């Protein structure tokens, strides 16, 4: 059985670009689910089988940090790994994300090679 990924970004363009980068990096998923913010992401995680989440940080309604915090409080989804993909690179924000369970981060802009380098070992 293959793996499923959830892409969380308020930019639909960026979700397409990340999906394309996954393919260019040779990383195949059976299903690519999408969400426009943390609230939508939680709804997808409650409904679908997701193996890994790639999430932005700065988003409306529920940002990436609040998403991680809320996810950590839900026993049925708290162990699903989350990799942050964001323009945010500061130790304070990335450190907070990691303290809430994020397994790593990719800085925007990124190349498919960078996605493969960081995401590949997590799969």
């Amino acid at each position: 059985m293959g793996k499923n990924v959830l892409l969380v970004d308020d930019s639909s363009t960026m979700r397409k670009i990340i999906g394309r980068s996954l393919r260019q990096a040779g990383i195949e998923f059976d299903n690519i689910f999408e969400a426009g913010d943390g609230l939508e992401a939680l709804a997808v995680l409650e409904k679908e089988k997701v193996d890994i989440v790639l999430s932005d940080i700065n988003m409306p309604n529920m940002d990436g940090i609040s998403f991680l915090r809320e996810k950590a409080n839900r026993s049925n989804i708290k162990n699903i790994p989350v990799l942050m993909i964001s323009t945010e690179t500061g130790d304070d924000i990335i450190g907070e994300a990691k303290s809430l369970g994020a397994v790593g981060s990719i800085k925007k802009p990124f190349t498919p090679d960078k996605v493969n380098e960081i995401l590949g070992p997590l799969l």
Partner: protein
Amino acid sequence: MKNDDFKLEQGIVTATKDVFSTMVMMELEDGCPVVGKGGEIQSNISSMLGLGGDVRGILAIHCPADVARGITGAFIGMEVEALNDDVKDAIGELANMIAGNLKIHLAAFDMDVKLAIPTSVIGESYHASGLFGACRIAVPFVSTDGPFWIELKYMLNG
């Protein structure tokens, strides 16, 4: 502190070229930056992003319609025929990444900058104003589809 102290013009050029070469697969030529008033900007779409923290202001990308369509097409990998939601979203995301790179540039000068979420406007004739007394830098770029501009209006906190 003056512009020269933290090399803002060079920071904008480097940040913008990096985003375009990495994400749009497009190499840019940069023109002479305009500091203060002046410099004619032709634009049918502008995407703006608020900055907070040690540098308060707005970073904007301004594009003529043909240029915005061309850049978006190269970014998402398909032809774009109109200034639609895809163009607004794509140009906004480019502004977001340029601001993110500029934030890293400023961090090297111990400047902590917070980023807001981008907003895009489309029109034939509009004028964006605000931040009375702010400093301004406008940098022209030439892409394979034509010219566009990155404009930073800012004030230093503290």
